[in-house]
């Protein structure tokens, strides 16, 4: 990158917050693309300055939060500047009486939850069971604390900006919804380097267009998210998880269907493969049968409600043919979920390579989708595992590469083609979330093209006409 531009950037940021030595830059590459410079702004005004410089010089900007999802999407066509949000890490307004919090984009999700729950109420946090003293666990006590009712994976790493930009969600979307149900307002920097504020601090707001919602899931293609206001809920009085093992996917889904047809209000109904299940719940003996799988039902709320959901779930499970069951409380409950939120993470470490595909479909078709996807992978000799938000129609399929086997790529491509057809046939869709292979570009990363794609391009064109934000990364190149 040329010196004039670097000096301009440096003026607004200070030399410490700008990195342009090529030896340092490679650590920040996205896919196979290295940035021309990496910047670490500490204020919204600094973000605006960077974008203004970029806009004037037609430089492409990619944003990086916690980096947990940088593998998602195509490699950027250009990446002159990588903007890291790590120094935008403050809570700017904690208004628990109104049940809202405003925080900056670079704040780690677990830190926000920690700040909200307060010292007294650490028990709700899904912190490592080892790093916590026993007497801090307080299950049956009344709370004053709050939480953001959102549970994205990798909460210790993922940042607020990244979560909103990627529209990340987790098991508890069943009860609490997704980002769109709790984001009240956003401050972002647009493609001209101007600071734009939309929405606000009230849970109801129809003043002007709902630009906050448009920004959700925009993957850094419409602007740099800097500050977000979210609605909160009071911490639930207590929580417990019922885990049950089943002989088959069919049996497991008959429990899911029974719960869904009832008036129970569980926070989450998760379904996962046998290997995962055995690892997460050592309390259960290994269940027999090759196709076995597990269901975990999370209940949160008043103690009577949690009791009732647990008891009814056990009954329904027995009727659905459960082989084994256990109700996890206290520490066991915490450590189960702590591990659960790390599923699919090995992609970032040195473990075996894997491909993570998120599938989604109308709730009632998930069984068919997961069942067929597993059968197809088995037929092609691919080792797969699943975990799914069974009551929400969202699942993840993980393909593990056992050894650098012959024709792995070809088999994966074939499987992916069939999965895509299957998704089309049941009004579903898929997204390849992780695939650290040089041939990633041959995969249908953003799934099936949507009828409204044309409109998305118009919006992108209107808001970022020069295409400086994450060019080429997102759906259909927007």
């Amino acid at each position, binding site marked *: 990158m040329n010196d004039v531009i670097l000096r301009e950037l440096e003026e607004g940021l200070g030399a410490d917050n700008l990195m342009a030595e090529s030896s340092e830059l490679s650590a920040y590459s996205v896919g196979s693309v290295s940035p021309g410079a990496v910047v670490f702004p500490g204020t919204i005004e600094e973000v605006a300055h960077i974008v203004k410089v970029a806009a004037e010089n037609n430089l492409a900007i990619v944003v990086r939060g916690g980096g947990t999802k940088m593998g998602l999407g195509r490699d950027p066509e250009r990446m002159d500047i990588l903007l890291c949000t790590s120094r935008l890490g403050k809570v700017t307004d904690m*208004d628990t*009486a*109104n049940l809202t919090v405003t925080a900056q984009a670079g704040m780690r999700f677990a830190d926000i939850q920690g700040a909200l729950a307060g010292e007294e109420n650490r028990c709700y946090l899904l912190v490592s069971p080892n790093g916590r003293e026993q007497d801090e666990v307080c299950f049956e006590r*009344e*709370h*004053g604390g709050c939480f953001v009712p959102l549970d994205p994976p990798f909460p210790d790493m993922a940042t607020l900006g990244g979560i909103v930009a990627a*529209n990340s969600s987790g098991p508890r979307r069943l009860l609490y*919804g997704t980002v*769109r149900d709790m984001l009240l307002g956003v401050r972002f920097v*647009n493609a001209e380097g*101007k600071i734009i504020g*939309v929405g*606000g*601090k*009230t*849970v*109801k*707001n*129809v*003043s*002007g*267009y*709902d630009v906050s*919602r*448009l920004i*959700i*899931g925009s993957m850094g293609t419409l602007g740099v998210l800097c500050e977000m206001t979210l609605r909160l*809920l*009071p911490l639930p*009085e207590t929580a417990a998880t019922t885990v049950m093992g089943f002989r088959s996917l069919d049996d497991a889904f008959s429990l899911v269907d029974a719960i869904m047809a*009832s*008036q*129970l*209000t569980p926070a989450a109904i998760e379904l996962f493969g046998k290997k995962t299940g055995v690892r997460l719940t050592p309390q259960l003996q290994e269940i027999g049968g090759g196709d076995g799988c597990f269901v975990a039902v999370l209940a949160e709320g*008043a*103690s*009577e*409600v949690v009791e009732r959901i647990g008891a009814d779930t056990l009954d329904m499970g027995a009727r659905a043919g459960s082989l084994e069951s256990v109700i996890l409380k206290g520490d066991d409950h915490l450590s189960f979920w702590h591990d659960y939120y790390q599923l699919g993470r090995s992609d970032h470490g040195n473990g075996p390579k894997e491909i993570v595909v998120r599938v*989604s479909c*109308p*709730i009632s078709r998930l069984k068919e989708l997961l069942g067929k996807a597993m059968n197809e992978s088995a037929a092609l000799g691919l080792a797969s595992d699943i975990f799914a938000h069974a009551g*929400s*129609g*969202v699942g993840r399929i993980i393909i593990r590469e056992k050894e650098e086997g012959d024709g792995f790529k070809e088999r994966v491509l074939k499987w992916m083609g069939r999965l895509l057809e299957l998704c089309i046939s049941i*009004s*579903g*869709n898929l997204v390849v979330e992780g695939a650290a292979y040089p041939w990633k570009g041959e995969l249908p990363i*953003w*799934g099936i093209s*949507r*009828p*409204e794609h044309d*409109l*998305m391009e*118009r*919006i992108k064109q*209107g*808001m970022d006409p020069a295409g400086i934000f994450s060019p080429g990364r*997102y759906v259909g190149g*927007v």
Partner: protein
Amino acid sequence: MEREEAIRKLQESVGEENVLFSDVDLTLYGYDASLEKGRADAVVLPGSTDQVSLVVRLAYQEGIPIIARGSGTNLSGGTVPVRGGIVLHFSRMNKILEVDIPNRTVTVEPGVITLDLQTMLLKQGFLYAPDPASQKVSTLGGNVGENSGGPHCLKYGVTTNHVLGAEVVLYDGTVTWIGGKNPDNPGYDLMGLIVGSEGTLAIATKIILRIIRAPEAIKTMLAIYDSIEDASNTVSAIIAEGIVPATLEMMDHVVMEAVEKSVQAGYPLDAAAVLIIELDGLKDGLDRQAAKVLEICKRHNVREIQLARDEAERARLWAGRKGAFGAVTRLRPCYMVCDGTVPRTKLPEVLNQVMEVGKKYGLLIGNVFHAGDGNLHPLILFDERDEAEKNTAMKAASEILKICADAGGTISGEHGIGIEKLREMNFIFTEDDLETMRKIKRAMDPKDVLNPGKVIPN
């Protein structure tokens, strides 16, 4: 194109009987529930998506404004044809197309009346949660247009939280689907953008809504107070104690008096304010929660609490709330409702300031509102025929919105901007913010055909 020719073309598209253009019709469709007026050039009653598409294409080619209209109950002038044009009235597109229990969705045409859907679903044990007080008349298309709220939105969220997808007609007549039963498509949340856009970005011709199981148990309470302040403090306290009721509605003595004259809901006439508090969910633990609410009310000097013993009593308590807007016209012929919303801890302070504004201008102001959401509805009462009083009322309304904006709130919680609040948009947005919205409007409606002159000030 000449007007006659345009009308002939419209008649060809939708049938002669479905195009209205008599003097009376055009005047009638020049109004909605707001105080604004305009005059349409023609009114079309489409019967299908194809017909909507034909009409919009014609309008696009000829540069004629298109104004989508449900029941015209919006309170911000959203359906007033300020620049003339074609009003698309959805009264004929009123079918519930599909109830899909396994997928927890219904698919409806936009002209379906909100309450009709809700009544039908309740028989099967399901809820479509958003319940604007106008639900007996309002349409789902209009609810989508305004992103309507209602008493139960405190717990369940507003319209946008329940819209999964829609078939829409775009500015040039193109028909496309946005969103759908699949919960998670990658891409921008266009559905979220269109909900609440007041018919200015796209016209919904089919809507997929999320439904939920009706709760197992409900407890409805009426808490009676001798001071508004105690009532508003109770609202904050309940939330602070970790309880999120299904509803937390407030009414002051002005409104109660009017309500008692019309529906006799049994509200005490000598009280300063009442709260309607409803808890719902599994029956387990609900009694304990109700006891906790009771205790909080007592701590805030409640005079008396009535608990609805059965569905009939519950209906009676609600009848007063739902009929409140209509009832106040017994006090004065017209009302203007300010829809300002504030962080709920600011309620006592803001309510005081609102009453001060009333005193200052010598206007009677009644309050009936979604207290749990901080969504005020001061009803400024006046007589439209008295031009001076009308102007004073409008000035007072603007001042109240300023008070809400300054308290960290916003100028509309659920009724929309329309034309009535265009001037107040700069209370909360900078010119750059507004320009962002204009960019979106230009991207989705380049020739400004869809409901021009609304939502964003020029």
